[in-house]
């Protein structure tokens, strides 16, 4: 019998054309210099075939790097769709041409996420590290909006862009987009190097959510905050127009991530590999001691917290990225810089 993995994130390539300061990709971390980049059509196909053989997967989210830079990406999407899996894509919105988006829509890709970090090129391009990226994103949006595929704008909230988040939401609204994901900067990858430029104090983060919540209400936007945020830092009840979510303690309901080599991780932010689908059984990997630690280990900081069952200590993958143990609460909790 196949193991049920309803939804997986598939890292199809590590290659990317941008240099986002906040990029959480584990291969962007300072100590990952030896990392060997991956981008292979045949390897991606082999891994997906094997994955579909051992697991009952219903949805695949292609992520990267930049998926539209992946070798023969449209064919991989077609293969996945022909296997009757629904598909969504996390892209940086700068590589695909209008006809590529049209192809994705024709293949029944249900949703695409693209970052719109500011209402102006200066802030956006500062965050992505590449001049001209904002204009490319704006052009992409024009191509995607009329298509059947749902478009979700992503704002990564950082020190650089938080103060103008209401203007950014207005701009997003003006482009015809109605769904926005608000991702607070979550330390990891390249973000470790740039943390001083990006980290928000608790007060700044709350201010950003407050502005976003009000702007979202006035503009009729559907807002969600998906990166688990510690409840002692942000109280979701103060921001009724934003849907907050947190990681599930249930292993099957976690945002499990597989790269094209078959390495399985707990989520795309976590650097620790649970095993490889070619050599280890899913059952064994997902019920290993290492995996169970995520549910069973309550960080010392949180031991007496009544909110633990809802909060789960925030994002502990961020702790892992900083080479801290799972016994460490989300680093955001202890970040109090002025």
């Amino acid at each position, binding site marked *: 019998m196949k193991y049920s993995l*309803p*939804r997986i*994130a598939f890292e199809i390539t590590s290659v990317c054309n941008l240099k986002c300061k906040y990029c*959480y990709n584990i291969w962007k971390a300072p100590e990952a210099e030896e990392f060997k980049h991956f981008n292979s*059509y045949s390897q991606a196909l082999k891994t997906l075939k094997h994955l579909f053989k051992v697991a009952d997967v*219903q*949805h695949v*989210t292609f*992520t990267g790097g930049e998926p539209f830079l992946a*070798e*023969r990406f*449209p*064919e991989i999407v*077609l293969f996945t*769709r*022909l296997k*009757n*899996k*629904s598909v*969504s894509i*996390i892209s940086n919105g700068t590589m695909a041409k209008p006809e590529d988006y049209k*192809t994705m829509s*024709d*293949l*029944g890709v*249900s*949703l695409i*996420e693209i970052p719109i970090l500011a209402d102006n090129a200066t802030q956006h391009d500062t965050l992505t590290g590449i001049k001209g990226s904002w204009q490319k994103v704006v052009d992409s949006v024009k191509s995607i909006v009329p298509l*059947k595929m*749902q478009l*979700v704008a*992503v704002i990564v909230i950082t020190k650089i862009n938080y103060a103008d988040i209401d203007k950014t939401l207005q701009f997003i609204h003006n482009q015809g987009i109605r*769904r926005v*994901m608000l*991702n607070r900067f*979550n330390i990891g990858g390249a973000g470790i190097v740039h943390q001083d430029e990006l980290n928000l104090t608790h007060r700044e983060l709350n201010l950003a959510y407050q502005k976003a919540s009000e702007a979202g209400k006035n503009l009729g936007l*559907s807002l*969600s905050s*998906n*990166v*688990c945020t510690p409840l002692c830092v942000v109280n979701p009840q103060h921001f009724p127009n934003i849907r907050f*979510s947190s*990681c*599930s303690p249930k292993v099957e*309901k*976690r*945002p499990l991530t597989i790269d094209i080599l078959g390495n399985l991780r707990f*989520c*795309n*932010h976590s650097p620790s590999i649970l095993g490889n689908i070619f050599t280890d059984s899913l059952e064994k990997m997902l019920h290993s001691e290492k995996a169970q630690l995520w549910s069973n280990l309550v960080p010392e900081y949180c031991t007496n917290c009544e909110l633990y069952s809802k909060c789960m200590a925030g*994002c502990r993958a961020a702790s892992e990225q900083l080479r801290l143990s799972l016994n460490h609460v989300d680093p955001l909790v202890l970040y109090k810089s002025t």
Partner: protein
Amino acid sequence: MNKTEFSFTLPFVAFALAFAAVSFMLYLSGGKSSYWLKKKMKIGAIMLTMSAASVGYQGCITTCYDMPAQNDISIDNLANYEIRVNLQENKYITGTIYERISTEFYFRITDTAYTKTFQLEQLKADDGAMDESSEKFTIMLSDSLESGIYMLNFYDYKVLAEDSAYASYPSFRLIVENNRP
């Protein structure tokens, strides 16, 4: 094989053969020919509409960087991505709408070519009101459905009987057995 099934199979086989041929040509080019790639994508997209591969994902998992689709319809009776019902044993299909944003939903049962409608009704929430982010629903299949393969299409807006039927978002293959005397 009944007519409904036949109308699905014959063109599909033709496209599958064309797809294999085009894929082979693309393979010969080492995956580099944009001409054959375009053809492969085009035929693949047509095959997808014919086979009605589901476009909605089946269950609500919120992930950090990855957003679930809205008005997402999940079916409980789904096995191998098909719904099989024996009307003598059970005529109900149950499911859930996740991340609901629309207030009106309809379902329409058509043949696999989406040309003929067999049942069209508003989808009602089990608790009577479409007002929560997740809503459970139950569909009672019409006794008049003959044994055969159909498409169960969902719409997040009002659909009228006179509107021409077409593949919806999402749609599922529905296999009905009806051995009534």
